[in-house]
């Protein structure tokens, strides 16, 4: 086995590392760099928990060779907001109760971000949101509140508001 030097741009930062040619981006993120926010499960693009953004577009990092990701902008969940300054999607996921076990959530948030960024200024219907996230499985939530959150975030991105309080409705 011969490792090659790779330079990956992740969340705006350059990472230099030695990688086997057959390693996927997911393996490099979690194994070599130690960024655990991107999750592993099926390893064959059937569940979406490994989703990252490649030049802003959601892809499954489990099937992308790390070597192929060189020269692209990679965004992981760690590159979105931080607790003091959450991205509207992150804030909406919390406020709308869309997070349960949370294992699918990094992938789900990036899948949603990819879709909303692809359609700036557009507030999608619930059906359109469901189509956009159909490639990321959630076993806990049944998707309803995830759709709520993405819908909320789409509106928040338009108005510039970020929902930080939980949504109070009549119980």
């Amino acid at each position, binding site marked *: 086995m011969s490792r090659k030097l790779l330079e990956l741009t992740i969340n705006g930062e350059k990472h230099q590392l030695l990688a086997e040619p057959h390693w996927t981006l997911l393996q490099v993120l979690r194994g070599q760099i130690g960024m*655990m926010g991107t999750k592993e499960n*099926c390893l064959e693009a059937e569940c979406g928990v490994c989703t990252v953004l490649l030049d802003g577009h959601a892809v499954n990092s489990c099937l992308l060779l790390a070597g192929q990701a060189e020269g692209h902008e990679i965004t992981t969940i760690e590159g979105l907001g931080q607790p003091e300054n959450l991205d509207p999607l992150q804030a909406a996921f919390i406020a709308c109760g869309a*997070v349960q*076990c949370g294992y*699918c959530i990094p992938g789900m948030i990036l899948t949603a971000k990819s879709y909303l960024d692809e359609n700036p200024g557009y507030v999608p219907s619930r059906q359109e949101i469901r189509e956009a996230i159909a490639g990321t499985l*959630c076993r806990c939530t049944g998707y309803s509140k995830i759709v709520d959150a993405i819908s909320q975030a789409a509106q928040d991105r338009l108005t510039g508001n970020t929902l930080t309080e939980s949504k109070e409705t009549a119980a």
Partner: protein
Amino acid sequence: MNAEAFRATGRVAGKRLPRMDGVGKVVGKHVYAADFTLPGMLYGRILRSKKPHARIVKIDASRAKAIPGVRAVITAADIPAVRYGQAVRDAPVFALDRVLFYGHAIAAVAATTLEIAEQALAAIDVELEELPAVYDPEEALANAVLVHPDWQDLKALPILVRDGNMAACAKIKSGDVDAAFAKAYRVYEHSFKTAIQHPGYTEPRASVADWDANGNVTVWTNTQLPFDTQNTLAEILDLPSARVRVIVPGIGGGFGGKLRIGVEHYAALLARKTARPVRVLSTSEEELTAATPRQSAVVHLKTAVDREGKLLGRQGRIIVDCGAFAGSGPGTAAVSLQVLAGPYRNGSLALEGVAVYTNKVPAGSFRAPAGPMANFAVESQMDIIADDLGIDPLELRLRNIVHEGDLGPSGEVLKAVSIEECLRKAAEAIGWHDRKPAPGRGKGIACSWWMTTGGSSGVYVKINPDGTATLVSGAVELGTGAITGASQVLADALSLDLSDINVAGVDTQTSPFDYGAQGSRTAFSVGNACLAAAADLRQQLFDLAAQQWNIGTEGMELRDKQVIAGNKAITIAELARISRLSGGGLIAHGTAISPPPAYDPGKLENHLLPVWNTPSFHAQAVDLSVDSETGTVSINRYVVAQDVGFAINPTYIEGQIEGGVSQGIGQALSEEIVYQDGRVMNANLTDYKMPTALDVPEITCILVQCASAAGPFGAKGVGEPPCIHPPAAIANAIASATGARLYSLPMTAEKIVKELRTARE
């Protein structure tokens, strides 16, 4: 002891507050067991059988051991001969003389990289001589092929009736069903079949084990039952349990599939052998061949009614397919009987639940064990009866449901009975008056009841000098929000805000005992333990304030984070500071156990769970359309009316309902682990079809709050019930829409087309 001391103020408990661990999860900082690593750790992999039933002729690991980087290869020969299991101690760590199912563990490897470990697996030479096998549970009862020829030598719970491949047989008997059948207006007899369903958590089973210099082992793992895992590990490792420490960093879903030992023992054994930390992570293929899925079942149901559709008697037999090890099969077979009885006045009952061994994957306790299978049978048959008698299905149910003070199937007095309210609300919300709105479109309804699992919980609660409280609990937060819910209960009782509560991590070494995050019990039981601790802390606070002011404690109040006596007030924070200086700090140990209700043991035989604690009641209704040419089902609307007692946090309760219904839809329409000649044909997520966002409809959640006597602020268990009804509700709606009645799950498009074609001919 607890519920009486406090009443919900509505200040914290009852509010839709954001969960406490949400921020970590959305920024990717929350650590799951699958993320946990230790420096210098090795990677473990398991060699699993590709044959369903075979004699192990030889295992030769010499080639594997010679691969550079391989640090250990172990088989049954290398470890103590321990067999474990909660009902029957039939399961060894590795296959002994025979492999008993496709996926049975034969050996484990630890290596410096995962890839080397995988190469090592391929280099282990195993010679297997295939044996005749049995896959059908009813066939297995004939004992022509014994899965455990040594079944008589196995240790088991004394209450179990066992015989050859039969691992358990539980009964509920009440009244005289023969007389009921004799005098009935009609008797209905049907059989139903359900398939093996994987819990489908997105985080695979993962464990890291590390031994210290004193021969103690710590295992970081995603288990729902850290104390049970601790005990099982201690048995397997031949250690006192105090030398085994189980820590749960975080868990990505469980649903009952991460209750019992999964890969912890492999990690611990490999770590002991190599004197290095070892990590074992299940692959998707292992999850779908060798995890602990929901049993498949066959239900035979015979029901007698009078002319008005009143139930006179029910005779039922459910055969639960345990797979190669009993696992929770015996408990599941027993609990199924209460589900078969349903929330109904049955007249008389003769129910039998049988757990049977076959040469397939050992099954477990996926959410509401036995619930969906038994409910599919009972509620489908209720509709068949209604249709035959010309009675509206809702009306038939209303004529037979239990009411407050009625006796349940075990002779227990039913309290806080809300099934009528649930049925009526679900029916109204779905628009029941118009059951067949269009050709190919119909509505169906199903109802059930379910328990809140008992077992004890302990918590420590400390009050800190900054005015916060620390909750130390042995209960794992699976994602349900139950720990947030329990914390809301605690905050409410201590006049604190939710943001004042800190939750410590789960660690068997330091956390008080908890019976486990299972059976819809966590918020209920931990909540009660918190109330007990809060009551103790309140007294400690009052006593300390009384000392400061040199007065008695009568009339003292705990309000706004202060102790108030007339015009005197002192903050909880200040009292905590004082206590640290002079009294060792403010801390309380709260415990909770729900004593089971009184019941009539004469009605039950060999039943592992004879009476249900704090039962809940629920109804679900669905409006769907069926494309009769393709068989595709499209769900238009879905409604759930669930009695939660008291909604501690409505947002996360809705989350449980929406998620449970989604799993039920999967079981109803698309999910099954498919075996052919004992081999799994769809051990990957391409062909194991869980619902995507396009497969689950919007779900209307109606929270009925019929307060329980025993729950915190009247709460009842919430997590499991939502997955019970979808198969029956959907089957009933399909029948309403098309006239086609399906008797086996999943109700795939192909089966629907076939049934419609048969009905036409």
